[in-house]
């Protein structure tokens, strides 16, 4: 892949020492897709294990948990911290945000380079799970006292979170400064792309909340290795403190994933409908900033069954239900952008359309989970598992895939293969629904999460077989998709300058792929310019 017009041929040194936001974006993409692939293999192993009642892949009943719990740990930690967050705020934000605001690079390019290599260190730290004999088995949540008492190596979990968290904080500072100070002359706040706004709001959340997570896991490290007792009630510690700190970050973290994913979809839906964003200001100031405002006041819904006082369980039921207001405004804006559009269906738009439905299913199933008393039965079952896979796992993954397809001509100068792309899409879309929709049904009937052994509920076995079939369909789809990117990047048809006929700066003002400095001529925008002005 030739990424920059300055280089002639591939030079490893240029890539390692690069400070170019576009190359850093590509490095983020490669690293996060690698994490995605390994975590995806774990997902398939989990599905195969659950497809029959007794031990399927694991050795036996007594030790099976040791293997299975490591798969669960790696799948969760790598998908969220190694794929979704870096894929959206690392890859997509790095490559496209400066282009969208008409900037030559980010504000601190060397800090940016530092953060991508921190990210790689984090990925390697996570992958060490498969090398060490005492792999971490604490789920991606790492709740004490288990994470302190386990013979598994909780330190790997803690250091993975530290490295990826630090990379993210640096990114947050960098991109907030970039958007505040480096917009093209004339570009006002109401002329920003939705993706720029979504990245800004996501990074505000990261900047405020990541330090809390870092503190929580550091206390865990101290408890396990230095003999402190932050979370040990027998020594005056608080057994629930960790969960409060963890979810104080990790609930907002789902918005760090949701917001940029929505931002990408807004770009794609506007471009392929050739329409302005429906009620832009309501979506930005009510929707995105509304989510930022509410993000830090709802974490207790992860602790509805943790023995929190009743008054806070009821209070946070109300604040959690209130999320439907900003999310509803974003949904109205997104669906409304289709209204009276001129819609075409290239591969990225297929993914975006699928996302609308994943968003509906995932979002609406969140409503009973916001209600304390409903959660008393539903929490820790497959219902929750299916809910967050729809809204966070699949929805955001489809958004990343949509982004790669949409900006593929920008990054490579080649068109992505349509036939293979569409085929991969249908495998993915059908596969995820076959996998996860049935899990809602057995979840309501009480299938517990994180169980490889469910011999007490033999009636759920057929559903698990269907779910495994779905996972295998997804695996084919993912393989076709990634194969398509590689084939198209090497031998794809040359892309026209603006293949989707967008009016956003990254398409109208810089070549495919952009060279150093991005724009051949300095960009200025007029007062009536918007990235969605299709000139009616």
């Amino acid at each position, binding site marked *: 892949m030739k990424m920059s017009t300055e280089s002639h041929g591939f030079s490893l040194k240029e890539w390692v020492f690069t400070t170019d936001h576009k190359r850093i974006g590509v490095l983020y993409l490669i690293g996060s897709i690698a994490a995605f692939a390994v975590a995806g293999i774990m997902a398939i192993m989990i599905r195969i294990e659950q497809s029959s009642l007794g031990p399927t892949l694991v050795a036996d009943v007594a030790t099976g948990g040791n293997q299975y719990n490591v798969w669960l740990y790696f799948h969760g930690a790598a998908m969220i911290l190694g794929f979704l967050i870096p894929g959206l705020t690392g890859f997509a934000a790095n490559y496209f945000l400066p282009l969208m605001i008409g900037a030559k690079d980010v504000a601190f390019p060397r800090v940016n380079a530092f953060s991508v290599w921190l990210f790689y260190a984090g990925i390697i730290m996570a992958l060490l799970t498969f090398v060490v004999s005492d792999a971490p088995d604490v789920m991606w949540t790492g709740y004490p006292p288990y994470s302190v008492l386990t013979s598994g190596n909780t330190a790997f979990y803690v250091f993975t979170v530290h490295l990826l968290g630090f990379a993210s904080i640096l990114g947050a500072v960098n991109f907030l400064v970039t958007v505040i100070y480096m917009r093209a002359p004339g570009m006002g706040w109401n002329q920003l792309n939705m993706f720029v706004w979504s990245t800004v709001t996501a990074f505000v959340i990261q900047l405020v909340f990541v330090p809390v997570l870092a503190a929580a896991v550091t206390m865990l490290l101290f408890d396990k290795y230095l003999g402190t007792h932050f979370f040990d009630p027998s020594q005056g510690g608080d057994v629930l403190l960790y969960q409060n700190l963890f979810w104080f970050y990790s609930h907002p973290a789902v918005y760090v994933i949701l917001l940029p994913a929505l931002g990408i979809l807004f770009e794609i839906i506007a471009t392929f409908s050739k329409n*302005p964003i429906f009620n832009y200001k309501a979506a930005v100031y009510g929707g995105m900033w509304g989510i930022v405002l509410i993000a830090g006041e709802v974490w207790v819904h992860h602790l509805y069954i943790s023995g929190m006082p009743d008054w806070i369980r009821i209070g946070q039921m109300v604040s959690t*239900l209130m999320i439907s207001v900003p999310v509803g405004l974003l949904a109205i804006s997104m669906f409304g952008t289709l209204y009276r559009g*001129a819609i075409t269906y290239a591969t990225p738009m297929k993914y975006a359309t699928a996302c609308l439905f994943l968003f509906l299913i995932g979002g609406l199933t969140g409503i009973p989970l916001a209600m304390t008393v409903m959660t008393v039965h539903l929490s820790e079952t497959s219902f929750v598992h299916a809910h967050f896979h729809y809204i966070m796992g699949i929805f955001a993954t489809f958004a990343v895939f949509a982004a790669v397809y949409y900006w593929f001509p920008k990054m490579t100068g080649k068109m992505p293969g349509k036939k293979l792309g569409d085929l991969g899409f249908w495998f993915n879309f059908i596969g995820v629904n076959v996998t996860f929709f049935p899990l809602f049904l057995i979840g309501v009937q009480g299938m517990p999460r994180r*169980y490889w052994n469910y011999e*007490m509920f033999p009636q759920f076995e057929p559903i698990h077989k269907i779910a495994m079939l779905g996972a295998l369909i997804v695996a084919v789809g993912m393989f076709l998709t990634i194969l398509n990117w590689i084939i198209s990047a090497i031998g794809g048809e040359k892309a026209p300058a603006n293949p989707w006929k967008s009016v956003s700066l990254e398409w109208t003002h810089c070549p495919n792929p952009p060279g150093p400095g991005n724009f051949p001529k300095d960009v200025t925008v007029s007062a009536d310019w918007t990235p969605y002005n299709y000139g009616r």
Partner: protein
Amino acid sequence: MKGRMVALSIPGLLLPGVAWAAESGKIVDPVESWNHLWHEVLIDLFIMGTIFAALAIHWLIKYRATSPDQVGRGPTLSRAQAWSWAMVPAFVFMADDFFLAAKGWTVWNTYRKVPENAMEVKVTGNMWYWQFEYPNGATSTYAYDTKEGDGLMVPVGTPVVLRMTSNDVIHSFGMAEYRVKEDMMPGRITYIWFYPKEEKQSWVTCVEFCGTLHSQMYAPVKAVPPAQFDAWLKQKKSTL
């Protein structure tokens, strides 16, 4: 007692379910309340989902481009329209939120208010089994590997309250059949109650990840006729 009735009647003005229960002295079964609310929530979700999905499908088909250079004719909103499209939906969503919150709160109260005649069983979580202790001191447990032990035995027709704690890590006591679940933690005591109305065997599973044998941490919950329960309890007591 009188003061307590007065205190109960204050939230009771807002929460008819509780007031009714307090007046009649009848036990409200949380399972029925949960199932009823679940049904209502599903209808609510179905209506919202159908509106959005139907509109989206309709527009996705209707507004396909007819020529490659066509641009959209999406509306430009006036200031009043833009505010309306923000405020009206916001209030509709908020109204639905408060409606669901009120319903949820009502059922929540039945979950937290233990009937007065409830039998208390102490439950202790260990890696990876439960120990049940009855008022007369008798204990019961269950081993996943030998399948020996009675697990949680309860008499039909008596509400049961579980006082729960843990000896090691966090476990969670989940009985899908009775729609209840709550974590058990070292150094803290939590409670849930349930109402076994008919004879049946169901399962309690540990639903908070607790290590290697997490998915082997389950036990039967046997609701048996009161006479059989009393005999069992007496026999357990004598073998102490």
